[in-house]
C-alpha cells in the first residue's frame, strides 16, 4: 500500500476532490498548511511598516491507496490541481507497511 501526499493551492482542492471522487477514490485526510519555496509571498502594511509574509496557505491531502491505484491517483491530482503557474505544489508517494480500519480492525488493502 502507498501513502500519497499532495500539497496543493487552496483553490485547487475542490477540483481535485471531485476528480478523485469520479474515479471512486473518496477517502482522504486534509490539513491546512503553509508552504514556502519558489512562489513569492505577499506584503502587508500596518501603520506604515511593511511585512513580507513568505509562507503561503496550501492544502495538504494524505491519501492511502492500494498499490494498483497509486499511479492513477497521482495522475489525477496532477491534472486536476494544475494551474500552470508557480506554486501548484508537489505530490509524493511513500510506502506503507500496514493499514488498519479502527472501526472493524480490518488490516491491509481492505482497510483502505
Amino acid at each position, binding site marked *: 500500500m502507498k501513502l500519497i501526499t499532495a500539497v496543493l493551492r*487552496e483553490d485547487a482542492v*475542490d477540483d481535485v*476532490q*471531485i476528480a478523485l*471522487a*469520479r474515479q471512486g477514490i473518496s477517502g482522504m485526510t486534509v490539513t*491546512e498548511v503553509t508552504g514556502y519555496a519558489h512562489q513569492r509571498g505577499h506584503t502587508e502594511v500596518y501603520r506604515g511598516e511593511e511585512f513580507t509574509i513568505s509562507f503561503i496557505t*496550501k*492544502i495538504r491531502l494524505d491519501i492511502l491507496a492500494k498499490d494498483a491505484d497509486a499511479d492513477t491517483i497521482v495522475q489525477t491530482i496532477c491534472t486536476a490541481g494544475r494551474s500552470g503557474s508557480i506554486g501548484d505544489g508537489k505530490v509524493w508517494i511513500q510506502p506503507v507497511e500496514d493499514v488498519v480500519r479502527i472501526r472493524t480492525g480490518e488490516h491491509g488493502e481492505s482497510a483502505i
Partner: protein
Amino acid sequence: MTFHEINTGDTAWVLISAALVLLMTPALAFFYGGMVRSKSVLNMMMMSFVTIGIVGVLWVTYGFSMAFGNSIGGVLGNPAQFFGLANVLGAEVGTVPAVVFVGFQAAFAIIAVALISGAVDARMKFSAWCVFVVAWASLVYFPAAHWVFAFDGAVAERGGFIANTIQAFDFAGGTAIHINAGAAALALAIVLGPRVGFGKVPMRPHNLTLVMLGAGLLWFGWFGFNAGSALGANELAGLAWVNTLAAPAAAMLAWLVTERVRDGHATSLGAASGVVAGLVAITPAAAVVTPLGAIAIGVLAGVGCSMALSLKYRFGYDDSLDVVGVHLVGGLIGTLAIGLFADASLTGSLDTAGLLAGGGLTQLGRQALGAGVVLIYSFLVTWLIAQALKRTMGLRVPMAAEAHGIDLGEHAETGYDLSKAQYSSYNVGKTLWLPNDTSKDENTEVSA
C-alpha cells in the same frame, strides 16, 4: 395614574436609560457567549436574543399590565387594565410619560429572563427554552416585578406587597431581578442535569475578548439600569451613577486580589466577573448608600461571589456560567447590605437606615424577608415549570448533538469559519458538485 407635569429632562434621561438597559441583553449574550466553548456560542447568544423577542412581545401585550396594573391583593397586577398598552398614552409616571416607563421596564423584564440562560449552556433544546421563557416571564417575573417595583399610586392605585407592605428597598432590582433569576437558574440547572463531561473535561472560555466586550457593555448599560431608576435627571440619579462606578470598581479589585491570593494569578475573566458581581450587588442599594458605602458593598461582592463559585462543584449542579454564584449571591449581598449600610440621610429616616449606619435591625429584617420571599417563590415555581417541560416536550438535546455541538444541532450553524482555505465539497442549495455523475453523491453514506 397620578398626573404630574411632564419634564423633558427627566423624560430624556429615562428614554436613554431604557435604551441602555435594552443593550444589556445583547451585552449579556456576548458576556455569556465568550465563556462557553466555541461549539455552543451561538446557542448561548440566541437564548438572550430570543428572550428579547419573546418578552418584548409579551410585555407589550399583557406583561406590563400584570406587573403594573392595579393590584389584586398586592400579589398581581390586573392584566386587563393595560392590555396591549391600552390606557397608557396620555398618562404619566412621575414626571415622564407612562409609555416611556413602559419601555424602561420592558428592558428590565427582558434581562431578568435572559440571565437564567447562563445556567443551561450547551444542552437545552432551543424550543424548550422558548417555552420556558414564556412560562417563567408570566408566572415568575411579572408577579415578582409587581411585588417589588409597583409602588402604590405610581402607575396604578395599588401596588405589590414587598414594596408597600414589607417595605424592603430594592432600588433597581436586586431582588426582583438578580435573586429571582439566580434562584431560577439553580432550579433549572438541577432539573436539567449537568453537561456531558461536567467536572471532568475542561470547558474553558473560547473567546475572552467577547467576555470583556460583554462586561464593558453591561457596565455601560447598567448606568441606565441604576441611575435611570431614579426616573429623573436629578441628584439621586447622579448618586446612583457614581455608586454604579464605585461598587463594581471595588468589586473588580477585590475579586482580583482574591484570585491572586488563592490561585496565584489575577485573570481577565476574574476582572469581568468582579465587575458584574459589583454591579449586581449595588443594584438594590444604589440610591441609599454613600459612595464609600458602595465601595464596601463592592468589596463584599467581589470577595463573596468569587468564593461562592466553587459551590457548584461541591454540590454537583451544573450552573454553567455561575448565575447562582454571581447573581443570586451578589443579589443577596446587595439586598442585605442595605440593612447594614443604608444612610439615613438618603433613606429619609433613621428607622430605615442600616445597622452600621446608625439604624437598627428593622430594615435588615425587611430586606431579608423580601429577598427570602422572592428566592423561595422563584425556586419553587421554576422547578415546577422545568419539571413540566421535562415530562412533556423534553428539556435536553440528544447526547450526540450535545457532543457534536449544540450550535450545529439546534441552529445548523457554526460560530466561526476562520479557515483561510475555504475548501469545501459543499453542496450549495440542491446543486450537487458532480452534475455529470449523479450516481456519486459524495454526501451519501456509502458502505465500506
